[in-house]
């Protein structure tokens, strides 16, 4: 399978995501100005600061030509993973419900966090076990997930709350400790922590993030856990 990883001028973690994806399949970078997704089976919108993230994180990036194609791709059921800034972009593009606000501590914060898998049946977590704990680093200033109560209730009942910060790990003040959510259809997933930075024990001591990429491969290739 082939991952396409978007690259904005201000992307920072796109090469990390590319290399992480290459551990489970092929992967290629896609320039923000291009509408051609190069036949990708899944898209990663990576971390960083897309267009400088002035105004609001992701606000400008969502209008890029590449994102227009990603919106169509998602509408056709294609898998789209948004990491950190990518999550913000997907929310701004309304591919995911809710919004990401300034961390409650008002600081950029980098910390290894423990995440609980709330739904291991979906396209992005099928390589995980239910309630499994993943050790993955998070690093952001705008990671406080917010959605209105009705939306949250609906998301909860339809299994869209995928990852949650383990007790004591939610430094950004996200509602209900939410770390990662998917859309109703289950083919678009965003999370603030960085799975691409937890794919090699040598670098950071955890390879738990690989499970996300592995799950996507299984989904695309029709493998069931």
């Amino acid at each position, binding site marked *: 399978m082939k991952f396409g990883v978007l690259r904005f001028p201000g992307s920072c973690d796109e090469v990390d995501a590319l290399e992480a994806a290459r551990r489970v399949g092929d992967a290629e970078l896609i320039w923000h100005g291009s509408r051609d997704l190069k036949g990708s089976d899944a898209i990663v919108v990576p971390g960083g600061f897309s267009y400088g993230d002035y105004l609001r994180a992701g606000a400008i990036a969502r209008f890029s030509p590449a994102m227009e194609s990603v919106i169509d791709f998602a509408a056709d059921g294609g898998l789209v993973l948004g990491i950190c800034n990518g999550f913000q972009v997907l929310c701004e593009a309304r591919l995911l419900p809710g*919004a990401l*606000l*300034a961390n*409650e501590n008002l600081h950029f914060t980098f910390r290894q966090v423990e995440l609980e898998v709330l739904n291991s049946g979906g396209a992005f977590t099928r390589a995980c076990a239910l309630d499994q704990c993943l050790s993955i680093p998070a690093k952001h200033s705008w990671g*406080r997930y*917010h959605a209105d109560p009705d939306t949250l209730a609906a998301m909860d009942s339809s299994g869209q709350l995928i990852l949650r910060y383990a007790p004591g790990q939610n430094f950004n003040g996200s509602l209900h400790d939410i770390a990662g959510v998917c859309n109703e259809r289950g083919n678009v997933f965003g999370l603030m922590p960085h799975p691409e930075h937890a794919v090699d024990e040598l670098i950071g001591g955890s390879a738990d993030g690989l499970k996300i990429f592995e799950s996507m491969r299984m989904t695309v290739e029709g493998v069931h856990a």
Partner: protein
Amino acid sequence: MRARVLIRPKAGILDPQGAAVERALPALGFAGVGNVHVGRLVELDVENEAQLQPMCERLLANPLVEDYEVQLLDGGS
């Protein structure tokens, strides 16, 4: 025409920046301050003022979490 857009966190959404200012002011000797909110200010020249609302909806504000208010600053030009 010069226009000003005031963008504020929607009521009911935690505003940690406002809270931080509210906490800091008494420590600096400013008493009697309350209900502090911090938002964004965008000022710009526009030719067509009818564009301001869609601009806010699409880019300048995020209507899910922010309210905005448009002010026209002068009639000229």
